[in-house]
């Protein structure tokens, strides 16, 4: 059974220094509030896993939460690079960052293998790709039936999955819809999981075949309205593309980035406080 708790308590109890943590979301439903809480609680030496690390991982890497990143596309989509990620890779600031790099197909299959309790994923991929020269976890296997040579990667089995969803009911059953990415697979592949939600309702009213994570597959459910901002939650609010563009300049220098985090994330108690803090900043700027 999922415990319905505060995000502060969930992160304190379920995410430890050195854990491997998959915070998934494919443009949609990215768990920004949870990322900020991890920064506030100053977790260290995490192995961060995500297909599409964007600005919340940029923030966590810049605040020295991570020692390793497993990913398949790292950027600020439609805007440009992630400056903190790039600086960690290119210069080792604030901490040298080990990277394990894949393609989307590899990671998607590896999450499925994790959820399916298999040791590895097999798929038709990585043909002629130079990643195979640098990522020793990419191997090949011959199909025992046809002889076709296929790519194999180890299953992803994180210590903790962290996702954001639209709704949970009071027992902790979780419902999400829209672009659902690999979140269901990430939760089912992980030992523990935290789900932040827009709202907690009496009844999910989920149609059959909806994407539902039953309460007993989730460790903690935390109500955090707006908790994926500046990403979006279909049916609740749209993507704050202005913020994604602003991030480019906020993150460009170490000093500006650190000041921004200290002021808006470390200087606030929770995500609601963060939202008020950046809103006040925007008004001041106008």
């Amino acid at each position, binding site marked *: 059974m999922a415990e319905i708790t505060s995000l502060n308590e969930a992160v304190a109890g379920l995410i430890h220094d050195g854990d491997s943590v998959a915070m998934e979301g494919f443009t949609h439903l990215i768990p920004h509030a949870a990322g900020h809480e991890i920064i506030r609680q100053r977790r260290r030496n995490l192995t961060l896993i995500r297909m*599409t690390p964007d600005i919340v991982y940029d923030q966590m890497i810049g605040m020295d939460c991570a020692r390793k990143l497993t990913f398949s*596309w790292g*950027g600020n989509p439609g805007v440009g690079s992630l400056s903190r990620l790039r600086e960690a890779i290119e210069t080792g600031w604030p901490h040298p960052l080990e990277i394990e790099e894949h393609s989307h197909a590899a990671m998607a299959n590896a999450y499925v293998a994790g959820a399916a309790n298999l040791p590895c994923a097999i*798929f038709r*991929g990585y043909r002629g790709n130079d990643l195979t020269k640098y990522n020793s976890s990419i191997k090949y296997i011959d199909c025992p039936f046809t002889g076709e040579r296929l790519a194999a990667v180890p299953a992803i089995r994180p210590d903790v999955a962290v996702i954001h969803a639209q709704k949970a009911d009071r027992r902790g059953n979780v419902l999400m819809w*829209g672009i659902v*990415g690999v979140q269901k697979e990430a939760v089912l592949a992980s030992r523990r999981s935290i789900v932040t939600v827009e709202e907690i309702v009496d009844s999910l009213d989920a149609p059959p075949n909806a994407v539902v994570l039953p309460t007993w597959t989730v460790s903690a459910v935390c109500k955090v309205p707006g908790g994926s901002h500046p990403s979006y939650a279909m049916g609740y609010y749209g993507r704050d593309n202005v913020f994604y*563009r602003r991030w480019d300049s906020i993150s460009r220098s170490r000093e500006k980035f650190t000041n921004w985090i200290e002021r808006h994330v470390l200087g606030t108690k929770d995500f609601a406080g963060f939202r008020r803090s950046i809103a006040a900043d925007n008004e001041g700027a106008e």
Partner: protein
Amino acid sequence: MMVTIEPGYTSDEMMTVAAARMLRDRQVCFVGIGLPSAASNLARLTHAPDIVLIYESGTIGTHPDILPLSIGDGVLAETSVAVVSVPEMFTYWLQGGRIDVGFLAAAQLDRFANINTTVIGDYLNPKVRLPGAGGAPEIATSANEILIIIRQSKRALVEKVDFITSIGFLDGVQTRADLGVTTAGPRAVVTDLGILAPDPVTHELTLVGLHPGVDVEHVKAETGWPLRVAPKLEITSPPTDTELSVLRDLNTRSAQAHKAVG
């Protein structure tokens, strides 16, 4: 007296229009973000109304009225026929062989149409770290054919990419079939200056078309290898009024939408 007439469109617009024309109605197209997305939607809004646009975020048969900023913007989900999970997208739909055309952009592209979106310089000691592979490596091998769109410059079109993220025709000697790849690979590269296509025998990218007003020497100067030129060059028809107005409206709507908080 010589009168120079401004063409009334930009080279980027010509590139997008020329790329859109490469797509046919009812094709199933796996769309990369950025330039491919603009060209694919222009095709859908002009000559290919029944083209099926698929984005790797899981949206199938999407009809966005604005160009998405990111590959998983809400407008893609709201206007699609179906939204599937990302594992399903890469297994049933891409690996399953249901994609006619994969439409890709590139940071670096080489003589044999290999794509680099990973790193400039050495992987372990990068000069510039790029976003990485995303869906492209398996799009490049699983889609029946590939279209590539890229702005032409010596820095972007190089003799050999620093890193092969997504294969074209490898080194021109080893073949796709040697790696067990059965799909055709790159059919054309559309740039802001013209159109390149792999030579049927050597697979080397060769200039086969020029956009209006561009001369061969200019294209050669913006290519990082000694560019071969087809015996007969097609001259691209300039954008029609319809193509231009649809593209401009699309870009204007998109720019406005991305300025506002959704």
